[in-house]
């Protein structure tokens, strides 16, 4: 429930292992094999970035708060876990998810406003509120009416105070939480794990260099410390994404303040070791995020847009 993630439908029905997720998606793809082969799509994370851009574009003129956008992203991700995307009009699904999320997050928008803004900023052919209303039925039905979402923001706010993060670090951690909605992480780990992960990354990333300034060395260091904490000496666990991250600015952790930052990090690591937070999950989340930042380099909005338009047009899904 709202206060109690552990009894929530999110934990009971919408948290999976990677194997379960892969299996579910394989099952869906096999059911629509011809369709999937006929209309190739970019990596799911790139599509998610595209969706996020679209949602933010729609949300801005409506002054929708971030938490409602996040809820909408989760609805979309859950929905496409159950319904093959090539059978849907993603534009309609996005608009509907935001419309529904606004109601759940107590910042309701009129259906006509959502539709009007969608037409205005997405340049879509959506004209009929009843389409949105109908899609809302599909969405709620596929989501089994399980619409209450536990976000990492609350835990993040608590940890920010606990660890006395600077304003920059806190802002960075917040945007890392925003980024995790572009990955499968919301379907894999509890929200507090994401919050912890965001804080770790915020402390090693360099806020001054702007959003994505990943310090490969710093992250590598953290991953190793965490692995050590887990009592696993295997370097493979900490390696992977971080070391091979190309195109990320190098440089040592925190520039001149390396030693202080290092101490800070060790403090976090030992806090984590003593807490009941699943360290393995934190490491996994960190790697997922790093590989997101890596693949982000390849993102072009138009590619996603075109490939979606292909199946939508060919199948007349926007009619």
């Amino acid at each position, binding site marked *: 429930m709202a*206060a109690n993630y552990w009894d*929530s439908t999110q934990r009971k029905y919408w948290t999976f292992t990677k194997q379960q997720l892969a299996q579910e998606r394989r099952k869906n793809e096999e059911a629509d094999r011809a369709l999937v082969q006929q209309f190739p799509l970019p990596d799911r994370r790139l599509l998610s970035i595209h969706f996020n851009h679209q949602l933010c574009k729609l949300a801005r003129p409506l002054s929708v708060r971030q938490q409602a956008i996040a809820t909408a992203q989760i609805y979309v991700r859950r929905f496409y876990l159950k319904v093959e995307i090539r059978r849907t009009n993603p534009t309609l699904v996005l608009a509907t998810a935001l419309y529904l999320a606004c109601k759940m997050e107590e910042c309701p928008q009129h259906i006509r406003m959502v539709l009007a803004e969608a037409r205005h900023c997405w340049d879509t052919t959506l004209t009929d509120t009843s389409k949105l209303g109908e899609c809302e039925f599909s969405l709620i039905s596929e989501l089994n009416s399980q619409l209450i979402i536990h976000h990492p923001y609350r835990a993040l706010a608590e940890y920010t105070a606990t660890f006395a993060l600077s304003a920059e670090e806190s802002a960075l951690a917040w945007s890392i939480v925003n980024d995790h909605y572009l990955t499968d992480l919301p379907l894999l780990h509890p929200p507090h794990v994401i919050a912890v992960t965001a804080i770790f990354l915020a402390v090693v990333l360099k806020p001054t260099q702007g959003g994505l300034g990943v310090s490969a060395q710093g992250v590598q260091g953290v991953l190793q410390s965490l692995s050590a904490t887990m009592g696993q000496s295997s370097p493979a666990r900490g390696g992977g994404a971080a070391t091979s991250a190309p195109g990320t600015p190098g440089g040592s952790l925190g520039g001149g303040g390396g030693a202080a930052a290092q101490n800070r990090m060790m403090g976090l690591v030992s806090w984590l070791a003593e807490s009941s937070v699943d360290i393995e999950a934190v490491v996994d989340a960190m790697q997922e995020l790093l590989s997101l930042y890596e693949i982000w380099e390849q993102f072009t909005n138009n590619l996603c847009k075109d490939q979606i338009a292909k199946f939508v047009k060919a199948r007349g899904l926007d009619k």
Partner: protein
Amino acid sequence: MNQPSTNTPILSAGSVPSAAASARATQAQALKNSVQAAFNDPSDSSQAMFAGYSSKKCVNERYRIIGFISSGTYGRVYKAQGRHGQIGEFAIKKFKPDKEGEIQYTGISQSAVREMALCTELAHPNVVHTVEIILEDKCIYIVFEYAEHDLLQIIHHHNQPTRRAIPARTIRSILYQLVQGLLYLHKNWVMHRDLKPANIMVTRAGKVKIGDLGLARLFYKPLHSLFTGDKVVVTIWYRAPELLLGSRHYTPAVDLWAVGCIFAELLSLRPIFKGEEAKMDSKKTPPFQRNQMQKIVEIIGLPTKERWPLLTSMPEYSHLNGLAAGNPRVSRPVGLENWYKQCLKNNQYPDGQSPESPGADGLSLLQGLLEYDPHKRLTAEAALSHPYFTGPMEKPSENCFEGSKIDYPNRRVSQEDNDIRTSSLPGTKRGGLPDDSLIGRPAKRLKEG
């Protein structure tokens, strides 16, 4: 005034008219069909996916509708049985589309969305269990476990002139279970916001279940102040003073005030603060509920800033002074203690603390619940550890009918559901009988603005 007799006919076991039996049977069958018709929608969903939503579950295929239970601003409730061996009986709430006879999807109301989400998420023995939710043919159906009774019906049953008060142990068990359910809701950051006798269900086995989460919502750090969403909450007689005084940031304490009102009503068999609702003016600004506030003040006296420090910062504070003018009952209130003693005497509860009487502990609990200052008012948790429940007597029973020989009539279920699309008055309409709002129950609530 306040004669309970106006209420008595409502739930008395209806006498069957002695018309020709066969004609009646035919008619009954026709009506039965019309009840069933409420679940048949002529529009089909033969279009392909994304050109059309089609439900995987069909309410008619899964349930057999037995009859109509009640209607309100939200829609209608029907009694049903499972067609596939589902255990027990069910109450199916069919949400009314925003506009009657709506043939297009218009978007689901926020309160329906909230109710669906909360019903799916919540699970507690003292909260009505949701079996499933079916979205079919532009309609939303929430399937609940069926409860044979509710507190309004129990109060009405005792209200008849020949009957006596509700046994003290029944009241104690009801209240204990009610507050346990409420504690669960509050622990999960859910405010009910519409507690009243009609919304508290009681099963045949004496289990109390909080129902109707149509106004309930989460209160953890709302994005908007609670005031902006729903201008007015809680049926007027059960509305807490901070709401009457226009508080914008109210708390779960509003539910505890309602529990206090319900406790008083169980004891006295009539609403303790039976005010008249002032209607919304044309500008849609909620008016000051003078009459309701007056009813409260006449019994427990005017609130003071000594007892309620934030009183003077309430938006409608200025109206309070005007209440006393020319009204001796305001300047010389009855006092809750006197009201309580009189009530116990009238209803022949014996003196002193015993299983047969709520005694002094009952008064103390009632005072704790009907406390003006929401910060001082008992919380659900504190109420549960009140001596009324934890004192030397045995623990309140999990079955509120334990030790009671009273046989409450079953819920009236009618076949007179002439036309689902047109005939729905607001208010808590009960099977086959006049709308409650017509005989003195206030209209359920205003829809959110």
